[in-house]
């Protein structure tokens, strides 16, 4: 029987038959291990009349029963195995229940080799600095630290957790402080990092300047998303990795033609609904057998993923089979009887420059089983992608909900229920695992409070109200600036006539202008108050230096300050200087009094002229800031 330490250095280049012989030996030892240490497997196999001794070829494993998570969740609470050192990890529970999986020395020893192999494929070299996954996040992450050391790279971990978008700042800070050559993370976290950089006005590729390659795990990369990430980060390659707590381990080579299965540590099958092996190229259920006799044994474990083996050989020369993991039932909707995964929809959308990087969620709608419904962040582009999706999935009815200003945090979850969309909640009370939430900034309270309903798609009435507010705001700004331009020209013309007549004329015309200006300013204030939350900004952020120092924050706060200064200036004009123009003297007023009041009126007119010029400049600056905000 092979032990994992016997895995040959060049195993990935061995021909299929030779690998199969080696793997058969590993499989037998795993079956013996499971039979010896797992009551569940022993009882199950006995009930099915199978035993490890009857395995003669790898394919004989197909006679063994398939187990699912529910198999392990039945029965009383257990204490962990007391066999040597043991560390437990919990799955994310995306299918409803988490599963605790045990890792021991044998597991670490066995999985370090394929992990290091994958990291080498991804270009990691001895002496590199790597910003790695947090070791407590996943067994893959725990193994990764040892693999990095095996290669001779130094590893840095950032503060916080990959599960919290609010911690993306710590990741970016670590990037700046550690200057890694290699980054290992998840696609959602990477996308959040890009967004955060943009919010803060940072150049993303400068932030990633030291990084040569990135490796991501946890969400299948579409070709469009890979190109997007590679371009935005300015790295040479973005590699995809795959791995499950149950023992599946996969990595891409530099040709990016699909993930190679590390055949020394796992035996993966893709089966159809009848439990038969699917043909290569045909999607089906993914079944994992961990080929390591250690930790929690997994033999023919259906992970819930849908996957497909990629036909043909990879030109890189690696002989390991290639697999594409498509998604899980919880990331799949059924339209006209056909399963459609989030990956398949994202693959189409991510080809569009105006859509790649936006979060899209499939909407499960039992009332309309023949309608493909997708919720997408942002406003609808000119060229609606519904037609593309309808063509691709041969579904005549595709409905896209554009989420407008609602901004979501990237997560692993890819499907929501139509009621969530309708009522603006994700489930009853508690936010499901990994669910997206409103995230004007990653540290917003909304992201910190999973139990709170997160967002509401805008109702028709709200949308109409928002449109009215936008029109009023725009008209208000145009009226204000326009009236001040007119006033400016008027003041210049008045300089050509005798001063006292000019004062009288400006007093007469000024009333209308002042009323118009004041009305416009009040409207701008009210509609502006309405629009601030629509920009995805909490009022509390207006006093948060991190937001204020960002380009958007600077523009918004400048607008507010300019508005306040305009209010003050207009108040001075209305209540301080304008009354001085309106003084009526008695008929018997002395010449001295008339001259004195005339001088006062002229001084007031001069001030009004100065303030109206200030108003004009401030109004134009506010317009520019506003245009920047809605760019």
């Amino acid at each position, binding site marked *: 029987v092979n032990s994992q330490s016997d895995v040959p250095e060049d195993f990935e280049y061995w021909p299929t038959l030779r690998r199969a012989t080696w793997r058969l030996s590993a499989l037998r030892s795993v079956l013996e291990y499971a039979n010896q240490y797992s009551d569940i497997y022993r009882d199950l196999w006995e009930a099915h009349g199978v035993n490890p001794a009857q395995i003669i070829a790898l394919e004989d494993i197909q006679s063994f029963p398939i187990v699912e998570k529910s198999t392990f969740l039945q029965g009383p609470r257990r*204490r962990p195995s007391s066999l040597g050192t043991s560390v437990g990890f*919990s799955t994310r529970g995306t299918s409803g229940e988490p599963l605790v999986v045990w890792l021991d020395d044998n597991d670490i020893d066995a999985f370090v080799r394929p992990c290091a192999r994958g990291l080498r494929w991804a270009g990691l070299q001895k002496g590199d600095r790597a910003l790695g996954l947090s070791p407590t996040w996943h067994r893959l992450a725990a193994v990764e630290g*040892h693999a990095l*050391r095996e290669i001779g790279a130094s*590893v*840095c*971990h950032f503060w*916080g957790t990959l599960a*919290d978008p609010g911690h993306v700042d710590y990741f970016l800070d670590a990037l700046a402080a550690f200057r890694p050559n290699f980054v290992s993370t998840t696609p959602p976290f990477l996308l959040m990092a890009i967004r955060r950089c943009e919010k803060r006005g940072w150049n993303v590729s400068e932030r990633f300047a030291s990084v040569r390659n990135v490796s991501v795990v946890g969400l299948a990369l579409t070709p469009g998303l890979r190109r997007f990430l590679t371009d935005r980060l300015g790295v040479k390659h973005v590699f995809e990795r795959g791995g499950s707590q149950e023992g599946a381990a996969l990595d891409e080579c530099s040709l990016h033609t699909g993930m190679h299965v590390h055949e020394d540590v796992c035996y993966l099958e893709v089966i159809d609904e009848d439990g038969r092996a699917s043909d290569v190229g045909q999607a089906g259920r993914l079944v994992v057998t961990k080929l390591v006799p250690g930790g929690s044994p997994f033999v023919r474990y259906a992970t819930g993923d849908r996957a497909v083996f990629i036909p043909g050989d990879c030109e890189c020369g690696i002989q390991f089979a290639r697999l594409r993991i498509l998604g899980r039932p919880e990331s799949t909707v059924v339209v006209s009887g056909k399963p459609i995964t989030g990956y398949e929809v994202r693959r189409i959308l991510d080809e569009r420059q105006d859509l790649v990087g936006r979060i899209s969620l499939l909407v499960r709608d039992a009332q309309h089983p023949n309608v493909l419904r997708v919720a997408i962040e942002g406003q609808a582009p000119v060229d609606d992608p519904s037609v593309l999706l309808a063509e691709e999935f041969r579904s005549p009815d595709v409905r896209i909900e554009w989420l407008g200003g609602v901004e979501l945090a990237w997560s692993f979850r890819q499907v929501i229920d139509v009621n969530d969309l309708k009522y603006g909640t994700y489930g009853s009370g508690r936010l499901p695992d990994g669910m997206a939430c409103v995230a004007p900034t990653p540290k917003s309270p909304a992201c910190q409070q999973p139990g709170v309903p997160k967002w509401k798609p805008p109702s028709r009435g709200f949308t109409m109200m928002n449109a009215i507010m936008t029109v009023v705001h725009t008209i208000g700004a145009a009226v204000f600036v326009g009236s001040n331009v007119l006033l400016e020209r008027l003041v210049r013309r008045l300089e050509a006539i005798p001063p006292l007549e000019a004062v009288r004329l400006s007093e007469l015309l000024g009333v209308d202008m002042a009323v118009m200006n004041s009305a416009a300013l009040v409207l701008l204030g009210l509609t502006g108050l309405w629009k601030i939350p629509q920009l995805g900004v909490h009022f509390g952020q207006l006093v948060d230096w991190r937001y204020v120092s960002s380009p958007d924050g600077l523009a918004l706060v400048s607008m507010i300050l300019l508005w306040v200064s305009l209010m003050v200036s207009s108040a001075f004009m209305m209540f301080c200087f304008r009354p001085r123009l309106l003084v009526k003297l008695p008929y018997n007023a002395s010449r001295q009094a008339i001259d004195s009041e005339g001088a006062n009126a002229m001084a007031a007119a001069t001030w009004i002229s100065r303030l109206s010029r200030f108003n004009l400049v401030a109004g134009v600056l506010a317009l520019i800031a506003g245009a920047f905000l809605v760019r």
Partner: protein
Amino acid sequence: MTTNPVISFALPDGQLRFGIGDLDPWAEHLTWCFNFLGVRSGATIGVLDFGASPVSFLGSRLLTPGLVSGVAERLPATVICLDGSRERVALVPRILDQVSFDVLVVRDELRTFLLETCRDDGVRLDDFLLISTLGTGLRGWDQPWILGWRRIVVAEATMLLAPECNHCRAFHIRGARYSVDPVERTITALGTQWHQALPDRANLVLNACSLARDEWIVSFSPDAGHP
């Protein structure tokens, strides 16, 4: 494992770097802290904390390269890594259906959420030894005693790990691991330049707890340290 790289942690208030051989003394100290808090050999310990927290990365040699023997190996105990996220806290009631815990170590920011989650799911935590970790910046260090909880200060950037005493209700500074400068009011990990300044309100007292003579304790209430 042929080379001798450094493992680093990028923290909000600096970078923490460990060479080979640096980690094990800290794992020994954390084991002492856990013992002090009442964690016993053979315990199953659930840890709801970040990977960059010493409470997590010193948990087992399986988690951290360069660590020969972590808490799991020293006590010995079994460690379950649950990460320091609300996502994982929300799973705790369902994880408890599968695994019986003896100890639950929770990052203090998550403590309230854990209690709410467990209350909503009808899960009682009375059977567990509950430990909350007061993290970066010593937030919450001066908060009053919490009934039913044991606490440990974890100042990551200076590696100050100080458990709260059940007897004197002050935080114990282990003499074998730290030196204390009562004039400058700093605590320094032996063999390092990691100085931890104490908050103004903290009382620094020597020989005040009968459980650990010749040791400094840090308290925030006037009567602490005089049980």
